[in-house]
Structure formats: C-alpha cells, structure tokens
C-alpha cells in the first residue's frame, strides 16, 4: 500500500524548544488516523508541517508524493484541511465565501455544499464573524469536504459542535471514507467520537511519536488483568520486558495493564488459577491514558 504521508526525522524548533522531534511516520492511503496527545504535544504543529504552513527545522515530509514546499496547485486541491483556529475572514458573507471556494477547486461538489449548509443550518447571508463557534467549525468542514479531497487533515474539527451536529459530522466522515481510497488524519480530544471512525491511532507525547498502530490491534493487545497479588508477582516474573503499561494494587488484588498478544496472555495465565483472574479489554480513552502514562524507554 502506498503512503499518503511520510515523514523522516521531522523536527521543529520554536526558538530553543523542540515541539516536534524526529518524527518517523507513515500514513497509508486509505487509512483513517486519530492523531492524539496531551495539549502541547505537537499535534497542530505536525499538521502544519505536513502542509508546509511552517518550515521544518530538520527532516523530510512527503504528502501525496510531494514536498509540501513544492506542492503543485492540482495536488494542493486534493488536500482538505480544517485548522484548529478559525481562519476565515470575519467580514465575508457565507454564500460569497462558498462561491469563492467553488471557483478555486476544480472538483468542487455543489450538491454536497448545499446539503451540508442545510445539515449545519448555515445561513448564507450571514457574515462569518456573526457565526457561533460551532457554526464556524461547520463552515470550515463544509469548505474542506466540498472540495472533494483525497486526503483530509482535521485539527480538532468537532470542538464547539453540538451533539446533533457532531453525529452528522461522524456520518459525513463515514461517507467521505466510503468514497474510494480516501485518507483521513484527525486530531481530537473527543476520543469517543474518533473511536467509531478511525482505523489507526498515532500518539504524540512531548513531540515524539510514542505509538502508531491499528486501533483493532490495540484493543486486542492491551488488556487489564485483575488477579491476587501473589499471582500477579508470579505473572510479572514471566512477562516479556516492557509490556506492563501500568499497575496498581488495591487490597489483596493487583490490576495490571498489559500490552501483549492475546494468545500469549492466555498461555501465561495457564499456570494461574483462572477463577481468580479477570481479563478485560479497554476503550480507546483508557488505552490512550495507559500509553501516554507508561514509563517506557524512548
């Protein structure tokens, strides 16, 4: 499978501070990736580096096969982007802005733009500056989706959307992904939303990529095991290095968060009295916290 995005050693300094560090990352065509990380981990900067909105201090980026600094307008038109901050001019009327974008993008989908304006209840005669925060996000999504991109980069797109608009937004993204080989990178704090949609999860911590894996694989390999402390000690002794993401003890039982192949865990638990052991999979939010919190050598 070819890559929609490749970075090698991508690094960005703001003055003395490294915001993105030696990022080696590859997003395959057709993947839907959640880009996660604590505030300040470098998510927005990474997206800007991919688009060439800010120069890299070191390293390479390839986006749809090109250097972002040498993107031909035709290639740029195949990339949709919604920035974290509202960047639309406040004085322009919504319908004028939509018409302007329609003239810029050769694959502009008038029908879709019309539908989205209705879905998000956007009044064309309003000025951008008069829109609510959620409507401003919705307008940016409308503009990015109606250009019919092959690669969509969304930076906190759903913040400010109300519950109904968020559900509509998820359905739009499901539609977008159904339309052939479409690639999505979405940074979001709304993990329960992205959990439905994404195929992969990438996690940044302090500018470094600490995980990039298929979501199903993470759900099948990261498990929480509750067992008596004595049995936990016995289990720990047999575990491969680095697979304990977190551990806690309460009363006479221990709670271990482990990352290892499901069958390997079954084998390791063979020696332990099974009626004393509980094994549970984790939702994305817990997986994220376990990976971000894990003290592992980098």
């Amino acid at each position: 499978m070819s890559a929609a995005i490749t970075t090698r050693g991508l690094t960005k300094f703001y003055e003395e501070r490294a915001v993105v560090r030696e990022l080696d990352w590859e997003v395959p065509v057709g993947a839907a990736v959640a880009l996660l990380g604590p505030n300040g981990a470098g998510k927005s900067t990474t997206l800007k580096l991919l688009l060439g909105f800010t120069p890299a201090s070191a390293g390479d980026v390839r986006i749809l096969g090109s250097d972002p600094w040498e993107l031909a307008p035709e290639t740029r038109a195949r990339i949709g982007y919604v920035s974290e901050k509202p960047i639309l001019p406040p004085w322009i009327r919504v319908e004028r802005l939509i018409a302007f974008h329609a003239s810029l993008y050769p694959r502009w989908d008038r029908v879709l733009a019309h539908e989205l304006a209705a879905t998000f209840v956007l009044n064309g005669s309003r000025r951008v500056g008069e829109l609510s925060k959620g409507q401003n996000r919705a307008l940016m999504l409308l503009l990015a989706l109606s250009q019919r991109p092959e690669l969509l980069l969304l930076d906190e797109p759903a913040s400010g959307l109300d519950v109904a608009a968020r559900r509509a937004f998820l359905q739009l993204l499901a539609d977008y992904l159904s339309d052939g080989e479409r690639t999505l990178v979405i940074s979001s704090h709304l993990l329960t939303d992205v959990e439905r949609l994404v195929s992969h999860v990438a996690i940044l911590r302090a500018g470094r990529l600490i995980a990039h894996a298929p979501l199903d694989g993470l759900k099948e390999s990261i498990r929480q095991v509750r067992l008596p402390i004595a049995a936990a000690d016995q289990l720990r002794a047999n575990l491969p290095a680095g697979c304990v993401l977190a551990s806690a003890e309460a009363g006479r039982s221990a709670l271990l968060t482990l990352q290892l192949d499901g069958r390997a865990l079954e084998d390791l638990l063979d020696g332990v009295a099974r009626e004393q052991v509980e094994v549970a999979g984790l939702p994305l939010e817990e997986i994220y916290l376990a990976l971000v919190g894990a003290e592992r050598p980098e």
Partner: protein
Amino acid sequence: MLFRLEPHSGVPLYRQIVAEVQAATVKGMLRDGDRLPSVRELARSLGINPTTVVKAYDELARERLIVLRHGLGAFVTIGRPALSSDEREERVERLATRLAVEGRRHGYSESRLVAILRRALRRLRPGSAARERTPS
C-alpha cells in the same frame, strides 16, 4: 436488521458486528438468503469506518455465515457447513470453559450451571417467549 454497537468498549467494532450477525442468525432474526445492508449504508447509519464493516463482512464470509456477491451485497447463508468440526468443537469448548470458570467464581453448583445452560438453549427455540422481535 438492527445493529447495536458499543464503540466505547474494549471489543473492536468489527468483532461486535460479527457477534451481532451471529446472534441474529441463531435467534432467527436473520434467515437464509436475507441481504445485509451495504458497506456504505451500514457505515453511514452507524457513523463508523467503512473498512470496519468490510473487515466484519470478510470475517463473516470466512465463517461462511454470509456470501459476498460482487455488486449485489452480502447475503446470509445459514445451514451450510461453516467451520471444520475440530474448529467448531474448539470454539464451544472454549466458551464452556469460560462458563465453568465464571460459574465457579460465583459459587454456582454443577446442577445450577447445567440448568442455566438448559434455559439458554430453551430461549433459542423458535416461538419461545423470550425470543426477540422479528425484523420488519
């Protein structure tokens, strides 16, 4: 056909879809020859990634619970040999072990566990009171 998914859980969504279809065929809510929603329809209605639906349908096709007919969709095929007899036995055996472990943990006697299993089997019988509504 209704799919009830719990995205916020430790079970991958494609596995949940597989389990829903399996359950629906066992309960008679899906019959031989029924058509499942298209990948696009299902992805949209659930707001999930279409590749998740593709993965689930592939898995169901591998288990011979459905057949994929190009351009036409996915159709339920009940009553054909699915897994090899060894595989089937291994599956049931594994679940039986879980049932036994869970029962022991709660201090259930052997006869009580057997009674629970009997009750579950009775619920699957067509026309039983506990049977779920048939799809419209």
